[in-house]
């Protein structure tokens, strides 16, 4: 991906805010890969991830006038995308507990056979993460990959700080057990 200077980012954001369709397309092409990777980590499958990407970029392009160029454009876009993804996670939580349980069991079964390749194949790791319970997945993503604090996670997900810490530990344990099992094999 080509890195833009701060001036270029500001100019691109300004043109996007003016409704310049070429600039908007440029912005999408520049960041679609990384943002799609983010979406895949939060979504249950590729289709949901594409929906998240679409919804996220619509929000980005509608709200881009709020971008103040104090930080990086990519960071701002990522926050918007993560916000949209968290809304998705909240909706997912309304699914029945049985589905969550089914997802956990499936995850364990498939993890035993596919975790070998995860260091070389992030898509395989993504597939495994997609089968984790949405609560674990969200906290793990936010804390380990988005550098959110537990306080921020608690605010975003509407849970207590203690719950955030607890879910992070359980999520980590979940993954570690899988990895250790596979390493032992």
């Amino acid at each position, binding site marked *: 991906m080509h890195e833009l200077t701060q001036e270029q980012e500001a100019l691109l954001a300004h043109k996007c805010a003016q409704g310049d369709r070429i600039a908007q397309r440029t912005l999408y092409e520049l960041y*679609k890969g990384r943002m*799609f990777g983010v979406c895949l980590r939060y979504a249950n499958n590729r289709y949901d991830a594409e929906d998240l990407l679409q919804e996220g*970029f619509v929000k980005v392009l509608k709200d881009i006038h709020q971008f103040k160029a104090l930080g990086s454009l990519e960071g701002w876009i990522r926050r918007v995308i993560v916000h949209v993804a968290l809304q998705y996670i909240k909706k997912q939580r309304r699914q029945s507990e049985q589905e969550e349980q089914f997802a956990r069991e499936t995850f364990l079964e498939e993890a035993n056979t596919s975790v070998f390749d*995860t260091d070389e194949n*992030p*898509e395989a790791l993504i597939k495994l993460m997609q089968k984790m319970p949405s609560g674990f997945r969200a906290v793990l993503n936010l804390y*380990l990959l988005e550098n959110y604090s537990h306080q921020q996670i608690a605010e975003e997900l*509407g849970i207590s700080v203690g*719950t955030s810490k607890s879910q992070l530990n359980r999520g980590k344990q979940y993954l570690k057990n899988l*990895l250790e099992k596979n390493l032992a094999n």
Partner: protein
Amino acid sequence: MDNKQHNKDNNLEDFLRKSFDSFEPNPSDTVWDKIEETLNVPADSAPPRISLNMRWLIGAAAAMLCIFTCQQFYFQNQISHLQKQVEKQQQEIKLQANKQNSTPNNSEAVASNPETTANQSTDTPGSNKPLPDPANLAASSPTNPIAQQNTLKEERSHTNQISHPEGHTAHGILSQEQLVDRSTVIQQASTDGEFIPVISEDKNEIKSMESLALLGQPFRYISTSESRSIPGPTTFENLPVAPNVKTKNWALGVFAMPVFSSTKVATTQSNAPGPFNKPSSSYAASGNGFYSGVLVEKKLPHSLSLVSGLAYQQQTIDAKHTTNFKFSDRRPPHHGGGHHPPHQDFEHQFDYDLPTNTGTVEVQVRVAEQDSNFQIPDSEDLEINTYTSQTSKSLSVPVLLKYELGSKKHQFAVKSGGIVNFLLQDKLELNGYEVNNPHLEILASDPASQSTVSRDKMGLDLFVSAGWQAQLTPQLRLGLEPSFVFNQSQPSNSVNVKQTQFGLNANLSILF
């Protein structure tokens, strides 16, 4: 040991970061197309939402327009039909007059009509003299020379003969349509200076004329005011005879009106203080009912009537209230005393004010977590649907103004005014609840408690109807009128209710 654990954690973090650091998968090409499509839709392109009341009003206006158009079409046809009849009768009259002029003994035909004979000797242009005594008229001779001299009166006699369905020579038994035809003839005759119309409001004179009716049918003069209310040429008021349908000033009738209603409830103070939550909520209600009662109608000038009466109305309204909560709005359930078991940690209670069209209802609903192993976040959204059924009974006093137009047999009537309602009974029942959240369920063993704030005992509805009336007999009238009833009330400080009812009013009246 701790260091080892820490290292493991870091390894996991590093492993994940490393895996996803340069991970840039490609989404499908359709994503941008969808984004572009969404961006192309302007924010304000959504069709403007028309409120329910506005829809009712548009529907009412369309119905009124339709009825007016049909009515107009009907009258146009009637007028063209009458015009044709007038032309035909004019030709016949002319032919008859020519025949009479050419017949030497035409005095016999004239003498057969005693009224004609009687009037001839005294009438002068523009006079309003009373008619002679019927006894004298009866004694009139067929050979009366005055009668023989007045051919115009003869024409008039023939006019009646042509018009009468049974061919008799009596006057005053013309239908209204025939009357209109005849008025045109008279108008033409008057213009030519051949005919002297007789006008009288004198009841004695009318009585004497009635005694002349050979078939025993009523016969009277039309008053000037009455003649104006009958559609037809402006010279109609000069007509010396009247339609045989008497003007009825009063009507007493019964009516029944099934109605369908739509209710909209809005809360005006969402953050009003109080022990209960006032969360955002929506309300969808539909109902049905009926009005029935008696109506009294008094005719006023200018085709207007005043309508009043007494009616009984009953309505049932089924509603679904959707109230939105966050899980943090919960509180521990009350112990509830005697038959309620002590609550568990996974049981919660939601208290809320339910705005209804009978007032605010304070509701307490208990729910239980389905899986106590899952910790529901405080920000979790949930909806509680509350189903209510309201039955109300009222006595109503309508005060309406009616305008009608049309022929004697069919009229188009518009009524408008107010209905004063006196509430007899107002009962609201909470029929059921459901919670829209996969982690929660309603505690079936704990029905919600409620307390109701009653609405005012007296209210005012606005009423509009437009419809058709048919004269079944001279004394009996049937009406079918699509009707709208609208009311707005504020059963409590924070609740504003708008209700629209649509019904079909069927009424049967006796005229006297």
